[in-house]
């Protein structure tokens, strides 16, 4: 007799902030003690904890990756990435003619674009292959090289279009990733619902695209209003002598922070819309997904993550990642039920190289990119 749990919610994340914070502090302390070499163990422990608190139909996800796998990936990246980088950035400028050194560095940056995309793909392959639900593995088939070169092409189109190709590129990337994703032997699908995948993204994207000039001028106007208000109230700035360097730096830093805040806020509708749209196009064995991400909660979650990351000098970045994972999972629903009894164990080959370049490029916030 098969038994299906009777879920009240298809997806849920029950992680508690203080529980995650405690582990993050422990990891931070050991990272400092080991000059960050502990980061592979820290990342593994954090993923294990976050995965175990994520439940699907009442049963938890399980992270089965090990720190030694990540460390092995790092050791693979040493000769293949770090040594060439050291040669290009340290040795070449000092001991080669400037033109050669310049072109070496330029070539490195150029190659880094598809390499970062490939690294992201490898990283996701590793993470999916180390994720299980009810003992069944997830996986990622397909070629990282194909994804890398396609991403490179989309990046060029994004550049040529001054960014306006971004919504299409984002959906293309999502399509390629999800069409190659597997749960056991069952592939996910990125369905065609008769509408362009980027439907509904243009307006929020336009808001984000204009975010910088809006934030720039908005920030200036707000600063002027604040200064004028203070002067009007007789609080400060009656004379130019009171514009000490400290005051000017304070106003400058405040204005920049304000601008960053506005940019983050104005990009939030696009990010929420894109996440919701991608979720709505994913299908597993006929079951569909629905995400109800909202602009303001997503903005505050992102803001909290950035503040925690910056104030902790990156040491507590996983807490920011946790907030996002929890937010998404608690707003994700499944419509319909896949025939789980017919979904067998994964036949996709496991990733053997850890996350190698993913670590080199710092592609996650110490949590994961699933």
């Amino acid at each position, binding site marked *: 007799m098969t038994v299906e749990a009777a879920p009240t919610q298809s997806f849920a994340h029950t992680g508690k902030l203080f529980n995650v914070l405690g582990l993050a502090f422990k990891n931070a302390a050991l990272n400092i003690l080991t000059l*960050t070499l502990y980061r592979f163990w820290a990342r593994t422990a954090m993923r294990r904890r976050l995965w175990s608190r994520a439940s699907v139909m009442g049963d938890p996800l399980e992270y*089965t990756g090990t720190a030694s796998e990540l460390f092995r990936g790092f050791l693979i990246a040493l000769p293949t990435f770090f040594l060439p980088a050291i040669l290009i950035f340290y040795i070449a400028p000092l001991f080669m003619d400037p033109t050669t050194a310049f072109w070496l560095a330029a070539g490195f940056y150029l190659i880094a674009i598809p390499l970062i995309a490939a690294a992201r793909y490898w990283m996701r392959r590793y993470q999916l292959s180390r994720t299980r639900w009810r003992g069944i593995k997830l996986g990622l088939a397909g070629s990282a090289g194909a994804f890398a070169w396609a991403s490179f092409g989309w990046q060029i189109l994004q550049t040529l279009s001054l960014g306006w190709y971004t919504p299409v590129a984002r959906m293309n990337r999502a399509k390629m990733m999800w069409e190659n994703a597997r749960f*056991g032997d069952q592939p996910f699908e990125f369905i065609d619902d008769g509408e362009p995948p980027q439907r509904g993204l243009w307006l929020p994207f336009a808001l984000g695209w204009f975010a910088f000039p809006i934030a720039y001028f908005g920030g200036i106007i707000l600063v002027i209003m604040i200064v004028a208000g203070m002067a009007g109230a007789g609080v400060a700035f009656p004379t130019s002598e009171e514009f000490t360097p400290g005051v000017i730096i304070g106003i400058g830093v405040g204005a920049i922070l304000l601008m960053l805040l506005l940019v983050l806020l104005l990009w939030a509708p696009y990010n929420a819309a894109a996440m919701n749209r991608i979720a709505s196009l994913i299908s597993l064995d006929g079951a569909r997904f629905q995400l109800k991400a909202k602009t303001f909660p997503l903005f505050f979650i992102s803001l909290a993550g950035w503040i925690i990351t910056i104030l902790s000098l990156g040491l507590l970045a996983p807490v920011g990642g946790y907030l996002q994972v929890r937010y998404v999972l608690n707003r994700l629903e499944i419509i319909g039920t896949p025939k789980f*009894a*017919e979904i067998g164990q994964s036949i996709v080959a496991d990733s053997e190289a850890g996350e190698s370049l993913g670590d080199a490029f710092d592609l996650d916030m110490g949590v994961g990119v699933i």
Partner: protein
Amino acid sequence: MQTRYADGRAAVTHDASAEFTADTLQVSVGETRHAWPYAELHRADDGAGRVILKRKPDTGERLYLSEYDSTRLQDAAPALFKPRASGVEGRATVAGLTAAAWSLAAVFLLGVPMAAEPIAGQVPPRYREQIADISWSQVGTFTDYCDDSDEAARILNDMAYRMMTASNVEMRDEVWITIVDAPFPNAFALPDNSIVVTDDLMALAEHPDELTGVIAHEIAHIEHNHVMKGIIRSVGAGIFFDIVFGGAGAGQMVAIASVNLASLRYSRGDETDADLRGLDYLDAAGIDAGGLARLFERFQEEADEEAPGASSIPTMLSSHPATDARAAAARARSRQGLAPSISPADWQIVRAACGAAMVEDVETPVEGPAPTTPPTTPSAPAPIPPEVATKPE
């Protein structure tokens, strides 16, 4: 909550019952029985306190224990309730990582600096020039060329040459002083044995011996190859940060910045060494070290008055060791009654160069006897390296 079993072949669970013997967990699923030795089990719990067991190596099978069975398991196999059973690393791992990290740090941050001197001595002139070109291009980004400083530069170079001759500095023919327009008082040596002096430093000096003391210090850095040693130390530290921290994040930023001229720092030992050797030059050339002492004292006073981090103190003066101690060391070598190192007429020319006198009001020209040692004749000037005879870019 009942015990459930997933067979690892399909994404469903089955009702199961568990029995706990001395060394084996017996799992019954319908008519099928599985025997799992405790030694082969690991935990894969959820965050809600439910015990989930899996086998090692992983077969995909999972046993979701009920609360009752969890308690029985704890009695039967207490080892499964230790952190290690959940994959938490042991103390030996942390100790090993700590030892490895600090050993690497010792190799790069202690070993490389120790080897910096012999390595610096082996850098061929061609590479030294190449590194100097990079330094000059960086100097060009934050300074401007002075088109009215030739005469002042000649005066300073004559004075420096006289000082180096008195101390028999071997590379005295290679040292060349360039005056630049920069918004801060500073003097620094470059890998090609050039010394860059900013107009603000010249304006800040109230007596020629103060400026001469600073130049003597920079010549000592050149004579003892501190510049190349500093670069090698920085590159070693950069590579260390790059390897250990990894990634394109903070570690790599530190790493890349380490080859930047602005981030280069002499070690405390190098600074002390340059201080002492610089005072030797002054002694040998008959120049009063009291000027340098006064400069140190004045900067110490300014540093005390300024907000932390807002210092306009030259790099040479803001480095370790403490300025108080350096002032005292210079004061101890001071000799009264010596002529200023640059004549009043020449000092006026130096102060007026590159708009230096405009930086702040020029003090009354220094009064005193003519220099005790005549300046070098035009027939024996220091050679002008082509890259510094013109605009340093």
